[in-house]
């Protein structure tokens, strides 16, 4: 008889690994977003994805549901992810401000043209 992997997949609890894998996907998507979007806001969205990927890891490592042992981050994980969320909010605000300013000054939000630092 052929065992479908899927059947077994749903009957067992997931572990930290699975969360970390999802985090990895989010993180990679975010990085790629940053690397490929020419729109400054797109880059910003990439950053949000990256932060979320990281957050997911913190939560996973801190969770007792996924792994109950002494090495768990415990509450620290959640606290750190809270800080991350808050800082992300702040960062979004500032970055938006920068983007708007840049837009005002250059009539563009193409990051490829923001290369004035190039010597």
């Amino acid at each position, binding site marked *: 008889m052929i065992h479908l*992997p899927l059947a077994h*997949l749903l009957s067992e609890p997931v572990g930290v690994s699975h969360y970390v894998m999802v985090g990895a996907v989010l993180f990679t998507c975010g*990085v790629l977003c940053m*690397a490929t979007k020419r729109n400054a806001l797109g880059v910003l969205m990439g950053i949000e994805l990256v932060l979320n990927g990281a957050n997911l890891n913190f939560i996973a490592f801190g969770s007792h549901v996924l792994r109950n042992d002494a090495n768990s981050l415990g509450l620290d994980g959640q606290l750190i992810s809270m800080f991350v969320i808050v800082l992300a909010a702040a960062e979004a605000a500032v970055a938006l401000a920068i983007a708007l300013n840049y837009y005002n000054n250059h009539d563009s939000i193409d*990051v490829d043209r*923001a290369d*004035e*630092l*190039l*010597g």
Partner: protein
Amino acid sequence: MDTTASNLSTLLMLAWLLPLASFVLILFFGKYMGSHGKFAGYLATGALLCSAALSFTAMFGVWLPNHPLPSTAHHTEEHGEDVPSEEAHGHVAAYPVEAISAQPVALQTDHEHGEADGHHATAEHSDGEHHANNAPPVSYFGDWYTLGQFGSLKLTISYYIDTLTVAMFCMVSLIATCVHFYALGYMHDELHDFTDPEVTMSDGEKLKRPGRFYRFFQYLSLFCFSMFGVVISGNMAMVFVFWELVGICSYFLIGFYIERHSASTAANKAFIVNRVGDFGMLIGMMALWSSLGTFAFGDLKDAEGHVVEQGIFSQLRTEENDYHLQPTASMVEEQERVRTQTCELAADEPPKQSHAGQWLLLIAGVGIFCGCVGKSAQFPLHVWLPDAMEGPTPVSALVHSATMVAAGVYLVGRFYPAFSPEALLVIAYVGCITLFVAATIAITATDIKRVLAYSTVSQLGYMMLALGLGGWVAGMFHLITHAFFKGLLFMCSGSVIHGVHTNDMTEMGGLRKKMPITAYTMLVGCLAIIGAGIPIIGPGFSGYYSKDAIIEQAWSFGSNNPHHAVLKWAPIVGAFITAFYMFRLWYMTFAGKPRNQDRYDHAHESPRVMTMPLVILAVFALGIGWQLPFTDLSTSALLEQARPVGTLATSHGEILSELVIPNEHDSHAPAIKWAAGWAAFSTAAAGLLLATAIYLWKLLDPQELKQSFKPLHSWLWNKWWFDELYQIIFVAPCMIVARTITRFDLGVIDSILHGAAAVCKGCSKVVYAVFDQTVVDGMANGVAGVTWDLGLWLRKIQTGNLRQYIMFIVIGTVVLFVAISFVQRTI
């Protein structure tokens, strides 16, 4: 038993000698066989057909009835690659989660166990039946003819027949027969006076010459004879003899168009590069010869079955030692002798028992492998193979599938029990580099045959990698499946070339409608080479089984040897690139719109004598990996029967003590199978998608891609500059040395005093010119220049482009990871 042996050896000897007879006949009478030797083609084809018939008789009439395959019926989901001893693993289903969690633990204990056993292989058989070594496979060995005997030393022409031999005979003869039939159609230009479009005479005319139809078949016959000789060889000396003959046949065939300078140069290159490999092989043979005193693979027995002379394998893997590889006392002595020769001062020290004989074993193994590197076009001797495309396409099909390049892999497989784990590691790394380098070059090539040539090199890298990682069956299995689909691919490309009269893919396109048989058989070949199949459960094309087996073995190896992780990833990356360039080839040739309307209009499907072999080979390319319904017969089961002595065990390195070559059957563990299967499938699918996106859906523009990767493209387009590099570091210095030597000779001719004076004067000039001006000044200028260039180059990195900076960060991360995983070894 005796009748089996004599039947087998007679059958195979006939199969082996028939092509020789055909060669001799055509050599002397080829010219008189019909107009331009038309019947020579039939003669050679007939001889090969008989060889094939004899080989298959040997397989199905003699071998299988006497040595039935073990039953594998209860392991359907593991696509027939199982043998009874795998029952040790139990019947574990492929649960992903459990698999992932279970595997590392198991491997860890394995590893600790190995270390606890100490460095001596002798202690290892306490590992229990899980590590039980396999006994020698059934084989027949005997001498036919003695070349020379000196005391106890004997150089002979002998045979060594086991399942592998018979299987190789069937494979080679089958493919060679197809190629012969195909060539009857392909070479019809040679049946009348031939105008060579690529050769212009000094008076501006194209060269006209009589056709050489019969010559072609004469060489083909000799080629097949030589290849059969390699396969049936019972000792290394005989292998070397036929090794050289294969080389010279390839010389003749690659240089078939002797009027073309490029062809004769390619032929020379092929032979000389092969000789470089033979140089290494000679060293390996010498090391073996002077320590073991024999080249024989098998044990020579007298009429009562007592062993008269022990062969290499039974000396190195004795039954008392549970078939573990252990250097013989004579090897230990020989290594000690070499060591004292190397460092005279250390002669008084007691011999180092720890690696007794292992270095010599390594030298022998790596030396023999050097020969295989040359024949199988592995890095760094891969440069000849693409140039070998100068030969007619049937030759390419033969060289690239069943003969020549297969000989190298075959020899590694044949010699396998004598390779120490360190030698295997060398093989694995060479294979790994080869598969990657060749695959990258194939991406940019536009000559349809060159793409296939590099794909061959890359696939050979896969085989070597598999063998080096301990996957004997995986490697040999891939050798056989690859022979079929690569033969198919080459003959398809030949059919295309025959139809459109160009090799350049940029002038093709849309040919699917004009030559449907070629297009769809080639599609089968492409799917086979990328290993298309339903992951984990099958079924799939033949390449799916063998390539998955390789990747599983790589995965298994990677889990055991974390600091050689690159060997685990290389085949997966390779699978991606393979899928990409193969479908790039197919799309560029057969899909889309014609790029050159003129050529398209004149294109036509090839005659039936050429398409029939395509169809036959396509059937095999699809199904050679399958188990024959209602029987236990499958290629992998056959190969499992041929498994060389003592290779069914986890072996540990002696010189590199952390090195573990995992047991091949461990790689069928569900966890590994699951992970490796998905990895292989997803990367291949990704490659296919990328090719489709670029060349079929045109989502990305190839020209634009080329522009954006200009440096990379030219790097690959120029084949990593290997030819130029070798020109600079080998050929040019050789010529300089040669000219220097000639000049030296002429200098002696002059009166000695006069000469001495002249030399003194010359020397001072040389010192001034070379040392003062070139070395001293050059060094100062060079340092300054390098600094300046470095500065300029580094400035370019500072583009001010946000997205590129992000890219650099990612690159940095990846590199850091890789670096750390390497550094872990030292911590």
